[in-house]
C-alpha cells in the first residue's frame, strides 16, 4: 500500500481515532513499569498531539458538506451495519467542536501536570488518557447505550483522578463524588431501558423518528424514561439541587484534574442540548418541548446558587467550583429555551467558560503555592474581625526557576481570568455573555418575566464574580513580597498562557467563531439532516460496504 493510500485509508477512519488512540496508548502504558516516566510522558504527548490533529481534521470536515449533503454530518458505522441495527459514531459541527475543546484542554492540563503533579500518584497517564477517551466517546456516539458505556469510562477514570495525589480531603471528596455518580448511573440505566421498552430502539436518530408515533398510552412512560435519563445528565451538569457535591470535589482535586473536570460538567450540558433538540424539538409531536421548563428554571436556580456561593467562598478553589456552577446554570437555562440564537450564544459561552475556568484552576494552584495554608479563611475573617497577627511562614524551598516577573505575570493571568469569568470586555467571556443577552433582548414585543429574570441573573452573576475575584485578588497579590513568591515552572506558565491565549483568540476571531456557533445552533434546531444522514444506508436498503466513504472496514 502506498503512503498516499494509507493516508486516505486513515482519513476514512478519523472519527474512531479520538476513542481508539487514548484507549490503545493508555492500555499500552499499563505494561510498563511505573518508574519509566519519560517513556510514558512521550507516549502521552504523542497521543495528545495526534488527538489535536484528529480533532482539527474533524473540525475542518464538519465545516464542508460533501456533495449532495445538506449538512456536513459524517456517520461512522463501527461494525459496518446500517444505523438502527449497528452502533454509529456521528461527527457533526457540535461533536467536532466538543472534541476540539477536549483535546485542547487535555493537552494544556497534561502539560501543566508535567511540572510536578504527574508524579503525585500511580497510573496518572493511563487514567488521564482514559478520561479523554470517555469524553470523546460521549461526544461522538449516536447511540444511547453506548453513551452510557462512555460515561462510565469517563467516570471510572475521573474516580481515579479525583483521588490523584491522595490526602484525606481528596478521599473524603471521593467518598461523596463516587456514590452520587454511581446512583446517577443507575438512573441512566433505568431511563435508557424505559425508553427502549417503549420505542424498541436506542439509536438517537431512530428514536427521534419514533417518538412522534408513540401512542398516547405509552407517552407517559416514554416521558418518564426521558425524565429519569435527564436526571443522570443533570447530576453531571450540576443543576441545583443535584450539585452539592461539585464545589467540594473540584476544590479537592489536584489542579490539572480540576481543569479537566471543567469540561465534565459540559458533557452533561452537551448531551442535554443534543437530546433535548433531537428528541423533543419541534418535530416531536405531542412531546415537543418536554423538560424545557425544568432546564430553564433549574438553570436559573443553579445560577442563583452559584453566584451566592461565589460571594460566600472563602478559598479560591471553591470560588472556581462555584464559577463552574454559574456557567453550567447559564448553559442549562439557555438550552431550556430551545431558541437557536440563544443556543448559538450559549455555545460560544460554553467554549469560553470551559477554557477560562480551567485556566483559573491551574492559576489558583500556582498562586496558592506561595501562600500560607489557611490564608484565605484568614483574609476573609480579617474583614470582619480586624487585623490579626501577621504570621509569615518561611516559604518552602521548591524546585523551579524563580522568574523575576512571576508575580506580575500571575497577576495579569488573574486579571484575565476575572474578566473572562465575570464577562467583562475585552476577552471572550464578554462576547459570550453579550451574545446571550442580545439574543434574550432580541426582537420586539413583550418579554416575559422569566426572560427578565434570566437577564438579571446573568448580569448579577457577572457582578458577583467581579466582587469575589477582586476581593480575592487584593488579598492575594497586594501582600508583602516575602509571603508571596511562588516558584513556577515554564511548562506551567505555558499551559496557562495557552488556555488564556485561546480565549484571547476567540475574541479576535469572534466573527468566524460566532458564525460557526450560529450554523451549529441552526443545525441542532433542524434535526432532520442528522436523522437522514444517520439512517441513510438503512433507508436506501443498500448493503453497507462501499456504500459511502465513511463505511468502516
Amino acid at each position: 500500500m502506498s503512503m498516499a493510500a494509507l493516508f486516505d485509508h486513515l482519513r476514512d477512519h478519523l472519527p474512531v481515532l479520538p476513542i481508539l488512540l487514548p484507549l490503545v496508548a493508555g492500555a499500552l502504558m499499563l505494561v510498563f513499569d511505573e518508574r519509566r516516566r519519560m517513556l510514558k510522558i512521550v507516549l502521552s504527548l504523542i497521543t495528545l498531539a495526534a488527538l489535536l490533529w484528529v480533532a482539527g481534521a474533524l473540525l475542518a470536515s464538519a465545516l464542508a458538506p460533501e456533495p449532495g449533503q445538506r449538512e456536513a454530518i459524517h456517520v461512522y458505522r463501527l461494525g459496518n451495519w446500517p444505523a438502527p441495527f449497528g452502533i454509529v459514531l456521528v461527527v457533526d459541527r457540535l461533536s467536532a467542536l466538543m472534541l476540539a475543546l477536549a483535546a485542547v484542554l487535555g493537552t494544556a492540563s497534561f502539560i501543566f501536570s508535567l511540572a510536578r503533579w504527574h508524579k503525585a500518584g500511580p497510573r496518572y497517564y493511563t487514567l488521564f488518557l482514559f478520561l479523554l477517551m470517555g469524553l470523546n466517546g460521549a461526544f461522538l456516539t449516536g447511540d444511547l447505550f453506548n453513551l452510557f458505556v462512555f460515561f462510565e469510562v469517563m467516570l471510572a477514570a475521573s474516580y481515579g483522578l479525583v483521588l490523584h495525589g491522595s490526602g484525606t480531603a481528596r478521599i473524603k471528596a471521593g467518598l461523596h463524588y463516587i456514590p452520587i455518580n454511581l446512583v446517577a448511573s443507575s438512573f441512566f440505566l433505568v431511563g435508557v431501558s424505559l425508553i427502549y421498552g417503549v420505542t424498541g430502539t436506542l439509536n438517537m436518530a431512530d428514536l427521534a423518528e419514533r417518538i412522534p408515533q408513540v401512542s398516547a398510552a405509552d407517552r407517559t412512560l416514554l416521558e418518564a424514561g426521558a425524565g429519569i435519563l435527564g436526571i443522570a445528565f443533570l447530576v453531571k451538569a450540576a443543576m441545583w439541587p443535584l450539585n452539592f457535591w461539585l464545589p467540594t470535589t473540584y476544590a479537592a482535586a489536584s489542579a490539572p484534574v480540576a481543569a479537566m473536570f471543567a469540561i465534565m460538567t459540559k458533557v452533561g450540558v452537551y448531551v442535554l442540548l443534543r437530546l433535548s433538540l433531537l428528541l423533543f424539538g419541534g418535530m416531536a409531536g405531542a412531546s415537543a418541548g418536554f423538560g424545557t421548563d425544568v432546564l430553564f428554571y433549574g438553570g436559573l436556580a443553579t445560577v442563583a446558587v452559584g453566584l451566592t456561593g461565589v460571594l460566600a467562598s472563602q478559598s479560591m478553589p471553591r470560588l472556581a467550583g462555584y464559577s463552574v456552577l454559574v456557567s453550567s446554570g447559564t448553559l442549562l437555562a439557555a438550552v431550556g429555551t430551545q431558541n437557536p440564537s440563544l443556543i448559538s450564544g450559549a455555545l460560544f459561552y460554553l467554549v469560553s467558560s470551559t477554557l477560562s475556568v480551567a485556566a483559573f484552576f491551574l492559576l489558583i494552584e500556582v498562586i496558592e503555592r506561595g501562600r500560607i495554608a489557611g490564608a484565605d479563611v484568614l483574609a476573609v475573617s480579617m474583614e470582619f474581625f480586624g487585623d490579626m497577627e501577621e504570621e509569615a511562614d518561611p516559604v518552602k524551598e521548591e524546585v523551579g526557576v524563580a522568574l523575576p516577573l512571576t508575580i506580575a505575570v500571575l497577576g495579569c493571568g488573574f486579571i484575565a481570568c476575572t474578566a473572562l469569568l465575570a464577562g467583562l470586555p475585552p476577552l471572550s467571556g464578554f462576547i459570550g455573555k453579550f451574545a446571550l443577552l442580545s439574543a434574550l433582548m432580541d426582537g420586539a414585543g413583550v418579554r416575559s418575566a422569566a426572560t427578565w429574570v434570566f437577564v438579571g441573573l446573568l448580569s448579577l452573576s457577572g457582578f458577583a464574580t467581579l466582587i469575589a475575584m477582586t476581593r480575592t485578588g487584593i488579598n492575594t497579590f497586594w501582600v508583602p513580597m516575602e509571603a508571596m513568591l511562588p516558584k513556577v515552572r515554564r511548562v506551567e506558565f505555558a499551559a496557562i498562557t495557552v488556555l488564556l491565549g485561546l480565549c484571547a483568540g476567540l475574541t479576535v476571531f469572534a466573527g468566524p467563531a460566532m458564525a460557526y456557533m450560529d450554523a451549529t445552533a441552526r443545525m441542532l434546531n433542524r434535526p432532520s439532516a442528522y436523522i437522514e444522514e444517520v439512517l441513510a444506508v438503512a433507508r436506501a436498503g443498500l448493503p453497507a460496504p462501499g456504500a459511502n466513504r465513511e463505511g468502516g472496514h
Partner: protein
Amino acid sequence: MEFLLAIGIGVFAGSGVWLLLRPRTYQVIIGLSLVSYAVNLFIFGMGRLRSGAAPILEKGEVGDPARFADPMPQALVLTAIVIGFAMTALFLVVILAARGRTGSDHVDGLGE
C-alpha cells in the same frame, strides 16, 4: 410472573435506597449493590417477560420475530452487570482508604 418481578425490583430498590441514605460506608456500598440489582432486573423486564421462548431464532427456521425473547435487554444487562461490579469494587477500595485515613467509617469521614 410480572407481579413477582415487580415485587422483587421494588424490594431491592426500596432496601437499596434506604441503605444508601445511611451514614455508614458499608451500608452505602450494600445499598448501591442492591440498587444495581434492581436496575438490572428492571432492564431485563423491559424486554418483556416470556418463558420458554428462544433467545434469537429457533434452529433451522426463519420464524416470526414477535415470538422470540428480545435479546437486546439481555445484552444490555450483561454490560450493566460488568460495569456495576467494577464500580462497586472501585468504591470498596475508596472506602477502605477513607477508613484508613480518617479512622472512621462515616460517609463524611467524621470520628465517633
